[in-house]
Structure formats: C-alpha cells, structure tokens
C-alpha cells in the first residue's frame, strides 16, 4: 500500500460534471474528489481487505440473528426504542433483503484490517467509489485493476428484491447535493436492472391515513430512503413506516448494525477477532487509550480520543444524547501526513469494492477528500 502523487487530468472537472453528472466534487469551496494522489495496492492486500470485509459482514448478520433471538435485552443495550422492535424482527424473519453497506477500516498494508465502524443504513461516498474512480482509472491506466465491481453488483442486486412492477421511490433530504447524488446514482442502477423508479424528497412524502403518497398522490409502496432509521423513529410518520405501510430499503433490521453500540456487541460475540478492535459500552472495560463515539453519530461528529479518561482530541457536533461506545484507540496510519480510511463496500452482503477517504487530521470528517486507488 503506497500513496502516489499523480497529475490531475487537465479537464477533469468539466468531464466528471458533463459525462458522469458528478456535481459534488468540490464541497464548500474545498476539493472533495482529489486526483492529485492515489493509493496503490498489491493483489494480496486487496485479498486481505476483501476477506476481512466478507467476514465482518457475516459476523454482522450473525449479530442481527442473535439480537432478534434474545429480544428486548439486546435492543435496550443498543438503545433501540421498543416501537421499532417488531419491525426489526418482522423484516429479519421475512428475510427482507438489504442492498448495501460500507465498512470503515483501518489498514496500513501490513497488519490485518480493523473495523472502525459499519455504515449499514445510509452509507454515502458510493458514486465516487463505484463510478468516478473507475472512470479515472480507465482514463489514466486502463490496463490496471481496481477493487471495484460495485456498479455491476448493484445492478445485479436489484433483481433479487422481487419488486415486480411496484415502483421504487428513492428518497433523500432536500437541498443536500451529496445525498441527492447518492440516491440518483442508486436509482440509475435500479433503472438499469429494469425496475420502475421515481424520486422524492423525504419532506415531500405524504400520508393519507393508510398509505404513503408522492406529490402526484400516487401510492408509495416501496421506498429506498437515504435517511437514518433512528431519525425516522423520532418523526411523525415513523410509526407508519414501522407498521409496514411501505417496503423499506435498507430494511428495519439494519437498525441493529447502523448503531455504534453494535461494535461492543461484535467484540463480545467474537473477542480477539483479528478484524475487530476491542470495544465496550463501559470505558472501564478497555485498558489504555480509547475513542469515544456517539452511538448514533454521523460524519465523525462528537468523536473524542481519550487517554486514561482525559480527552486529548475531540470534534464538535449535536450527537451523543443516546450515549457513547468506547473503542480501543487505533490511530489511522499516516502516509506523508495524510490519514486514509478504507471504505469497503458490501452489495447484497458480498464484498464489492473500496473507496478511500483521506484527511489531514486523525479523525475522518465530512470534509475529508476522496482519493482513488488501483492495484497491481
């Protein structure tokens, strides 16, 4: 694993906007898509990442099975409110399929990949990984390979949702370019799989007392929502979604995994696993330096690094009301002062590829840059 400086394609901005519809390559004036550098891997390194990803996904599915079997006690530890329990169990017992997820891994090319966290419900940085870095490699070195069959796997995965002619609505919040880009891309892959699709903003979803409706008052029977389940639970229409008024992707059972308390439960289930970091709900259970993460945090908000209970680094934000999980501190490796985190994708629970986000600090935030990769 090496970080390699590269010369950006001279016309890349115009190209990605025009030909790929990539609208959020620059966020708040700062570069997000960054092709001034890339990472080079060996095939053996990619094997290690792929194997770890597959194994982590299987462990996560086993954890959901255990949670559903043990019921209330586990949900309570995961801070999942009781209103959601029947939907979790219903969706799991009816084997409602999941589309995708992203494992954020620590990897340095030498020691085994370690799980920082699993974005199981609303992962983004998908289009960049699936399309933009693929397109970059085709332009730069088409003969080289990349750990990235995300696009093909997404199109394939849609075929197994058995939606028939039921129109699938893709929903994101209003006014957020990155979220819109993610659902528009997923919709693109669904269309290629032959699904009937439509797009709606979460705020525009209507409810007539028995059905969800779109802005033309057509019923919404199937919904892909890039909107966290734990937010849905707290909102006015949340109960209707839990009651099964529409088929939802990701399914409700993903609540068990989209929740950082699951990191502690994974460690309890498989203590010492080479791809896990020690994690606990009680900081006293971990010796040494730890990272404190809000159970329902996103985008690196409210994360703190603790050394013997003393905070040595911290990010701001509005999360943490539901409590925290503590994870052994495993600092990101540094490559020339850059700190990459591997986003390793699963599609339909199978390893599908990776995207790398790089920051100049040791806590990856929503301001980090996306850097492409290849392997030789």
């Amino acid at each position, binding site marked *: 694993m090496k970080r390699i400086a590269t010369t950006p394609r001279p016309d890349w901005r115009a190209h990605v906007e025009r*030909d*790929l*519809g990539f609208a959020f390559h620059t966020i708040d004036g700062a570069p997000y898509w960054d092709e001034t550098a890339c990472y080079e891997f060996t095939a053996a390194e990619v094997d290690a990442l792929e194997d770890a990803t597959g194994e982590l996904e299987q462990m996560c599915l086993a954890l959901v099975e255990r949670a559903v079997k043990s019921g209330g006690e586990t949900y309570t530890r995961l801070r999942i409110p009781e209103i959601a329990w029947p939907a979790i169990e219903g969706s799991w017992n009816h084997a409602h399929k999941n589309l995708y997820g992203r494992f954020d891994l620590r990897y340095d090319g030498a020691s085994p990949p370690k799980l920082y966290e699993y974005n199981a*419900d609303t*992962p*983004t940085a998908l289009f960049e990984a*699936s*399309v933009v870095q*693929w*397109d970059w*490699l085709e332009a730069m070195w088409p003969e080289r390979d*990349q750990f*990235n069959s*995300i*696009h*093909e796997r997404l199109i394939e995965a849609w075929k197994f949702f058995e939606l028939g002619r039921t*129109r699938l609505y893709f929903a994101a*919040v*209003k006014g*957020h370019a*990155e*979220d819109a880009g993610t659902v*528009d*891309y997923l919709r*693109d892959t669904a*269309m*290629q799989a032959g699904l*009937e*699709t*439509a797009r709606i903003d*979460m*705020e*525009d*979803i*209507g*409810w*007539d*007392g028995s059905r969800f*409706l779109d802005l*033309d*008052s*057509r*019923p919404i029977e199937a919904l892909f929502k*890039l*909107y*966290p389940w734990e*937010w*849905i639970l*707290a*909102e*006015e*229409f*949340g109960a*209707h979604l839990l009651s099964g008024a529409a088929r939802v992707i990701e399914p409700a059972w993903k609540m068990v995994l989209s929740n950082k308390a699951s990191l502690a439960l994974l460690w309890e289930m498989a203590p010492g696993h080479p791809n896990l970091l020690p994690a606990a709900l009680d900081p006293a259970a971990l010796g040494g330096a730890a990272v404190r993460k809000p159970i329902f945090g*996103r*985008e690196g*908000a409210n994360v703190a690094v603790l050394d013997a209970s003393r905070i040595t680094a911290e990010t701001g934000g*509005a*999360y943490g009301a539901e409590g925290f999980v503590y994870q052994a501190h495993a600092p990101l490796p540094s490559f020339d002062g850059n700190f990459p985190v591997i986003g390793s994708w699963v599609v339909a629970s199978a390893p599908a590829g990776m995207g790398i986000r790089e920051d100049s600090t040791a806590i990856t935030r929503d301001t980090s840059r996306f850097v492409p990769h290849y*392997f030789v």
Partner: protein
Amino acid sequence: MRKSKTVRLVLLGGTSLALGACDDTPPSDAKFFANLQECTAHYSEDKCQTMIKKADEEHVANAPKYSRKEECEAEFGIGHCETRGEGSGSFFMPMMMGYMLGNMMGGGWYGPVYRGRDNAAFTTTAGGSTYNVGSFNGSGRGAAFSSSGAITQVARGGFGASSRSYSSSSGS
C-alpha cells in the same frame, strides 16, 4: 479483473432514458364532476376542457360495447346503458355519468365514470384498471353522486425534522 467491465449511466451523465411507463392510479385528490360546468367552478376552463375531452375519448375508445341491450344491462344494470351508432352499426355502451378528475394543478388525471349494478359508481383508466369511487342516487343521467370517501386528505412533512435539527447530511 476485479473492476467493473463497463460502467454505463442512464439517468446521470450525458444521456437519459425516457422514464417509466404511464401510471394510472387515481390520485387521492380525484373528484367527481358531472359536467364541464362543475369542473370550471374549481379549475380553469382550459384544463377542464382538455381533461374532459380525454375522458370522453377514453370512453368512446375503451368502454365495453355490446350488440344487444340485455348483454350490456346484465353487466351494468337495468337502465344504465345507452345506444351508440346507427342502423346495423349500432351498439350499446354503459352510460357515462361524469368524470373523475385529479391532479389538476399538475399533469392532470382523468377517468370516465359509469354506473354499475347496485348504483355503484366506478371509473376505468387507460391502463384497464377499475376503481370504485362512490355511488349514485336517483335515476337517469342526472342522478346525484356521493363519494365513497375512500380518497382522503394527504398530510406531508412527517419526515425530515431530524435532518433540520442536526443540520447534517443523512448519509454517513
């Protein structure tokens, strides 16, 4: 190779597909109008004329046609059919009682309304679906329509509050 062989985009990027097939589910704001006059009391004359013309065309093109009055009445009820055409080309069709019109501020939705057995009011759509929308009281074309009330008012904004309070992306 472990990269995608090809990456084609149909919605994003350069080329777009024509989207989806026509959907004919009645919008929940669909209401019954006996004639153009009732429609123009709510909506513009232009829009009413356009949608009523489409519904009339739909009726002529797709309503069931019977060579004998009895066949039609067996299906739709006594007195609910009318003759069309002349001489040997004449046939019987269910009597059109009015129009279901909806989404009139948007693209518009229409369906001809018929009276069936037991005075049930129903509409048929271009896609061939049938929806019960209410019932008729009284005889003939002037019978009063009463809605089944199945189409209710729609609430919106029941999702999105958390996103505003965290002022954050929903993604992670």
